[in-house]
C-alpha cells in the first residue's frame, strides 16, 4: 500500500489548486470592488468607477496570470495545459495531423532504420571482453609497396618476446579441412591459431575449455574446439561431446571445447579471416622455426589496460627496427608493423557506406521536417486571429511560442512512435538485402542506443519544425490578426515558405545526385570486365583424399576426377585452381625474380601464385594470349613450367615475347614452398581475383601436377544450368573416394554477385532515399503552390474574367515555381559539388562530379516542380470567375 499516500498527495494537489484559483478570483474581484467604491465615494458614477478600477489594477486577468506565474510547479502545469490544448487542436484538424504525422514517421523511421544498422556495425562494441583493447597488427613492406599483409611465424614469436605494451599477441590462419569418420564427409573452415588466440578475444567456451599452452607446439596431442553450429549440425548437440574424437584431414583430434552460439570472429574483409569458422585447431609446430619470409598469420593483440594505440605503434616501430637489423629477410623489403583498433579496422569498408547513407537519410529527415514546418506555418496563419485573441487575453509571446512548440513536439512525438514501427520495417528490408560486407548488420535492432537516438531525433525534429512558425510569428505584431483579414498571409510567411521549398529542392537535389552516382557505379560494375567469364560455370571446393600418402597420389586423384567430369553430358571444359577468383580462401603470393637476378633484386616484387589443372583457363574463360596451356604431361617428370599474366609479361619483358624466358617462382613440393626456376610457356589475360574494381598484383600460374596443394576449386563450364551437374559431380567424387569432402557447390556467378553486394546495397538504399526525398519535395512544392494559388483565386478570377489567356496565367504560376526551383537547384548543385567528393571511395567508373548525374537530377527535380505547380494552377483556372471573386468576400 505504498501507493496510496502518493495518490492522496496528487488529489490534495488538485484540490488545493482549485481552492487557490477560487481565492485568487475572489481576492482580485474584491480589490476591484474596493477601488470602485473609493471612486464612487469620490463622486464617480458606478459604471465609470468600475471601468477606472479595472484600468488602475492593470487588467484583472493579467494580474492573475502574474500571480499564477510565481506558484511552484507552474511550468509543469503550463506544459500539461499546452499539451492538452495541442492535443485538442490536432484532433480537430485530423487531415493536417495525419499528413504531418505520416511525413514525420517516414522521416524519423528512415533515420531510425539506418541508425539501427550504424549502431550494430559501427557503434556497438565488438562481442569480446574489453573489446576496446583489441588491435589488429599488420605487416607492411615499404620497398615492395605492400601494405596490410600477413606476418610470418618468427615475426609473431619475436613480437611476443619483445613487447611490453601488449598483454597478448595471437595469430590465426584460416584454411579448409575435411571432416570424415561418422556421417557424410564434410569440408569445413578451420581456424589454425596460436593457443592464446581465443583467450585473447576473451569469450569463454560454452562447454569444455579454450586452448592452453600445452595444446600447441611440438609434442602436443591434436586438439580442436568446435563451433556451436557444427556441434548442433554434426553431433546433434550431444552434451557429452567434450573429450570425444573428431577426424580432421584423416587425423583424430580430441574435442576439448565448444564455442557459444553467436560467437564469431570479426576481422577486416581483407584479412581472409571469414566469420564462419567451424573448427579451431592450434599450430602444432614451432612457429619460430617457420620461414621468416612466409607471411600467412593475421595478428591480433590485446593492449595492456591504459595503453593507447599510438604508444603501441611506437613500440611496434621500435620492434620492427630491431627485426630489420637482426634479419636480412626483413631488412631488404623494409618491414614495418602497423597497429589499428580491431573494431575500427573491421569496419573500414562498411564505414564510408554507412556514413554516406546516414548523411542521405539525415537529408530526407530534414526535408520531412521542412514539409511539416510548412504545414505548421500555413496552420499558424489560419489561426492568426485565435493567436491574437490569446495575446490580448494576457498570454505572453513566450507563452504562445511555447504553445506552438508543444504542438509541433506532440506531432513529432506521434511521428516518432510511428517512426519506430517504420524503422523496424526498414531494418527488415535492409537485412533482406543481406550485405555481407556489413558484418554485424544481423544484430541490428531496437537497442538502447537506437531508442535514445530516436528520442533525441524526435525532439530535434519537433523543435526544428515548430521553430519556423514561431520565428515567423514573433516578427509580426501579434495583434495584427484583428486588424487585417488578409487570407494571403503575411509576406514574412511566404518568405519563410519559399526558403523552406528552396531548402527542400536543394537537399533533394543532393540526394538525387548521390543516388545517381551510385546507380551509375552499379551499372559500371555490372559491365566491369573481370578478365574471366563466370556465366554458365559450376564451381566447388574439394579437398585431397585424407589417405593420400604423397603429392603424386593426390595429383592422380584430381586427374581422375577431372577426366570423369569431362565425360558428363553438357560439360564443355573442366579445370581447377587453388584460389578461385573472388573466393575467400587466403591469398597466395610470393616474391619472384628473373632468372639470374642478383640477390639484392630478389625479394622485391610479389606476384599472386595459383596452382591450376590443365584446362582451367578455358573453363574459367581466361583468354590465352600467346603460347600454350599446361598439359597432363607438365608433371614432376618434366621441366618446370609456368604461365604468366599479361601485366607481368609487360612489366618484365616490354616489347618482347616472354615465351621461353625463365623466372624463379614458388612451387610447392610436399607442403614445402620452394623457389624454383621455371620456363614461361604461355601468357593469359589478367583476371581480377580480389575485387571486381581493382586489378591487384601480377599473376603466376604453376601446374598443379608440379606443385600440389591440399585443396582445389573445380571450375566446370556447362552447356545449360550449372547446378544441374551438382548431383552427378557428388556421385563421381563419392565413387572415387567416399572420404573426400566437397563444399561450396555453387555457380561461379554467385561469387560475382557477392562481390557486387556492397554496391548493390548502397545503391538500393540510396535510390529509396532519393525517391522518398523526391516525393516529399514534390508534396512540399505542391503544398506551397496550392496555398499561394488559393490566396490568389480572386486575382486569377479577375484576370480570367477580363479575358486573360489561360496559357499566360498558367505560365505566371509555373514560372514563379520554376524560379524558386532553379534557386534550389543552384544551391543544391553547390552543396553536392562539395559533398559528393565524400562518396569517391564508393564510386567506380564515374567521377564524383559526373555531369550526367548532375543534369539528370536537375531535370527530374525541375519536372517534379513544374508538375507540382501545374496541378493546382489548372484547378484554380477551372473555377468560375464569379465564384472566384466571391471567394474574397
Amino acid at each position, binding site marked *: 500500500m505504498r501507493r496510496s499516500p502518493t495518490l492522496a498527495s496528487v488529489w490534495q494537489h488538485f484540490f488545493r489548486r482549485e481552492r487557490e484559483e477560487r481565492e485568487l478570483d*475572489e481576492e482580485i474581484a*474584491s*480589490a476591484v470592488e*474596493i477601488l470602485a*467604491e473609493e471612486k464612487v465615494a469620490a463622486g464617480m458614477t458606478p459604471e465609470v468607477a468600475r471601468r477606472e478600477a479595472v484600468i488602475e489594477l*492593470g487588467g484583472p486577468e493579467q494580474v492573475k496570470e*502574474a500571480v499564477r*506565474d510565481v*506558484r511552484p510547479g507552474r511550468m509543469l502545469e503550463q506544459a500539461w495545459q499546452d499539451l492538452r490544448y495541442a492535443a485538442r487542436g490536432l484532433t480537430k484538424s485530423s487531415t493536417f495531423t495525419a499528413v504531418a504525422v505520416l511525413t514525420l514517421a517516414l522521416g524519423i523511421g528512415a533515420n531510425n532504420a539506418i541508425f539501427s544498422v550504424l549502431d550494430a556495425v559501427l557503434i556497438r562494441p565488438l562481442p569480446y571482453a574489453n573489446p576496446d583493447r583489441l588491435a589488429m597488427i599488420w605487416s607492411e613492406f615499404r620497398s615492395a609497396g605492400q601494405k596490410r599483409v600477413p606476418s610470418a611465424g618468427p615475426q609473431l614469436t619475436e613480437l611476443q618476446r619483445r613487447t611490453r605494451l601488449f598483454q597478448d599477441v595471437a595469430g590465426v590462419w584460416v584454411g579448409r579441412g575435411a571432416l570424415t569418420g561418422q556421417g557424410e564427409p564434410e569440408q569445413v573452415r578451420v581456424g589454425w591459431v596460436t593457443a592464446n588466440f581465443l583467450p585473447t578475444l576473451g569469450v569463454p567456451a560454452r562447454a569444455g575449455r579454450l586452448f592452453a599452452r600445452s595444446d600447441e607446439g611440438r609434442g602436443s596431442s591434436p586438439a580442436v574446439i568446435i563451433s556451436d553450429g557444427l556441434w548442433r549440425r554434426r553431433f546433434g548437440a550431444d552434451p557429452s561431446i567434450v573429450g570425444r574424437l573428431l577426424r580432421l584431414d584423416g587425423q583424430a583430434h580430441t574435442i576439448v571445447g565448444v564455442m557459444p552460439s553467436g560467437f564469431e570472429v570479426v576481422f577486416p574483409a581483407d584479412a581472409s579471416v571469414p566469420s564462419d569458422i567451424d573448427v579451431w585447431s592450434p599450430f602444432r609446430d614451432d612457429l619460430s622455426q617457420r620461414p621468416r619470409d612466409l607471411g600467412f598469420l593475421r595478428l591480433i593483440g590485446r593492449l595492456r589496460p591504459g595503453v593507447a594505440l599510438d604508444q603501441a605503434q611506437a613500440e611496434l616501430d621500435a620492434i620492427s627496427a630491431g627485426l630489420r637489423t637482426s634479419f636480412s629477410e626483413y631488412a631488404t623489403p623494409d618491414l614495418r608493423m602497423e597497429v589499428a583498433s580491431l573494431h575500427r579496422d573491421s569496419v573500414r569498408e562498411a564505414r564510408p557506406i554507412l556514413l554516406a547513407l546516414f548523411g542521405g537519410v539525415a537529408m530526407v529527415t530534414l526535408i520531412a521536417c521542412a514539409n511539416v514546418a510548412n504545414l505548421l506555418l500555413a496552420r499558424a496563419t489560419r489561426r492568426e486571429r485565435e493567436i491574437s485573441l490569446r495575446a490580448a487575453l494576457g498570454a505572453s509571446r513566450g507563452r504562445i511560442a511555447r504553445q506552438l512548440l508543444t504542438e509541433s513536439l506532440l506531432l513529432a512525438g506521434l511521428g516518432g512512435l510511428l517512426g519506430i514501427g517504420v524503422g523496424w520495417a526498414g531494418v527488415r528490408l535492409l537485412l533482406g538485402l543481406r550485405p555481407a560486407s556489413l558484418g554485424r548488420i544481423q544484430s541490428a535492432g531496437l537497442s538502447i542506443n537506437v531508442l535514445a537516438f530516436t528520442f533525441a531525433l524526435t525532439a530535434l525534429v519537433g523543435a526544428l519544425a515548430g521553430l519556423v512558425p514561431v520565428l515567423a510569428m514573433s516578427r509580426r505584431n501579434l495583434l495584427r490578426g484583428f486588424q487585417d483579414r488578409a487570407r494571403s498571409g503575411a509576406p514574412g510567411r511566404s518568405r519563410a515558405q519559399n526558403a523552406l521549398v528552396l531548402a527542400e529542392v536543394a537537399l533533394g537535389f543532393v540526394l538525387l545526385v548521390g543516388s545517381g552516382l551510385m546507380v551509375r557505379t552499379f551499372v559500371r560494375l555490372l559491365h566491369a570486365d573481370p578478365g574471366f567469364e563466370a556465366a554458365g560455370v559450376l564451381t566447388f571446393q574439394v579437398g585431397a583424399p585424407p589417405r593420400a600418402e604423397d603429392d603424386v597420389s593426390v595429383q592422380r586423384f584430381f586427374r581422375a576426377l577431372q577426366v570423369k567430369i569431362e565425360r558428363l553430358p553438357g560439360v564443355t571444359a573442366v579445370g581447377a585452381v587453388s584460389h578461385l577468383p573472388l573466393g575467400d580462401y587466403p591469398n597466395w603470393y610470393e616474391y619472384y625474380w628473373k632468372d639470374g637476378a642478383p640477390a639484392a633484386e630478389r625479394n622485391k616484387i610479389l606476384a599472386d601464385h595459383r596452382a591450376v589443372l590443365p584446362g582451367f583457363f578455358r573453363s574459367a574463360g581466361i583468354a590465352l594470349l600467346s603460347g600454350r596451356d599446361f598439359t597432363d604431361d607438365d608433371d614432376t617428370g618434366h621441366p618446370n613450367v609456368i604461365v604468366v599474366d599479361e601485366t607481368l609479361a609487360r612489366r618484365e619483358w616490354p616489347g618482347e615475347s616472354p615465351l621461353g624466358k625463365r623466372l624463379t617462382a614458388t612451387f610447392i613440393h610436399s607442403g614445402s614452398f620452394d623457389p624454383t626456376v621455371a620456363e614461361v610457356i604461355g601468357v593469359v589475360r589478367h583476371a581480377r581475383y580480389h575485387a571486381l574494381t581493382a586489378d591487384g598484383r601480377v599473376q603466376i600460374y604453376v601446374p598443379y601436377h608440379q606443385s600440389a596443394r591440399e585443396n582445389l576449386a573445380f571450375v566446370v563450364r556447362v552447356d545449360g544450368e550449372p547446378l544441374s551437374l551438382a548431383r552427378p559431380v557428388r556421385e563421381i567424387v563419392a565413387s572415387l573416394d567416399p572420404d573426400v569432402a566437397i563444399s561450396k557447390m555453387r555457380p561461379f556467378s554467385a561469387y560475382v554477385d557477392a562481390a557486387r553486394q556492397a554496391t548493390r546495397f548502397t545503391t538500393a538504399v540510396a535510390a529509396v532515399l532519393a525517391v522518398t526525398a523526391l516525393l516529399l519535395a514534390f508534396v512540399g512544392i505542391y503544398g506551397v503552390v496550392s496555398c499561394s494559388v488559393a490566396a490568389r483565386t480572386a486575382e486569377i478570377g479577375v484576370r480570367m474574367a477580363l479575358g486573360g489567356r489561360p496559357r499566360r496565367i498558367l505560365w505566371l504560376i509555373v514560372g514563379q515555381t520554376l524560379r524558386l526551383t532553379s534557386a534550389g537547384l543552384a544551391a543544391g548543385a553547390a552543396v553536392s559539388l562539395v559533398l559528393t567528393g565524400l562518396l569517391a571511395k564508393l564510386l567506380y567508373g564515374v567521377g564524383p562530379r559526373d555531369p550526367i548525374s548532375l543534369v539528370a537530377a536537375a531535370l527530374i527535380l525541375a519536372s517534379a516542380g513544374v508538375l507540382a505547380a501545374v496541378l493546382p494552377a489548372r484547378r484554380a483556372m477551372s473555377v468560375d470567375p464569379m465564384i472566384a471573386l466571391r471567394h474574397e468576400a
Partner: protein
Amino acid sequence: MSEAERKSDLLQGTLDLLILKALAAEPMHGLGVSRRIAQVTRGTFEVKPGSLFPALQRLEQEGWLSSSWGRSESNRRAKYYALTRAGRRQLASETRQWNRIAAAIGLVLST
C-alpha cells in the same frame, strides 16, 4: 520596456522589504499594503498590482506571510495578510542588511 516596468524591476529586491515592513504594524489586504507603502514613502514608491499580488503570493509561499479572509472598512470580504514569526525574523535580518548597505554606500558617497 516602459519606464514604469523598469522602475519596478529596480525595486524587485527592496519590494519584499517594503511589504514586510508595511505589514509589521498590522494585518492588511493587498491594496492596503500598496496604499501604506505609497503613503509612508510619500509617493516615491508606487507598487502596481501586477507586481504586488505576485509578491504577496511569493512571500506567503516563503512562509513569511499568512493570509485569512476578513472584512474591509466598507464591510467587503477581502484577503488579509499578516506577518508570521518567520516573517518578523526575515524583516529584522533584511533591515539589518539594508542598514549595513545604506551605511556603506553613504560612506562611499561622502568621500
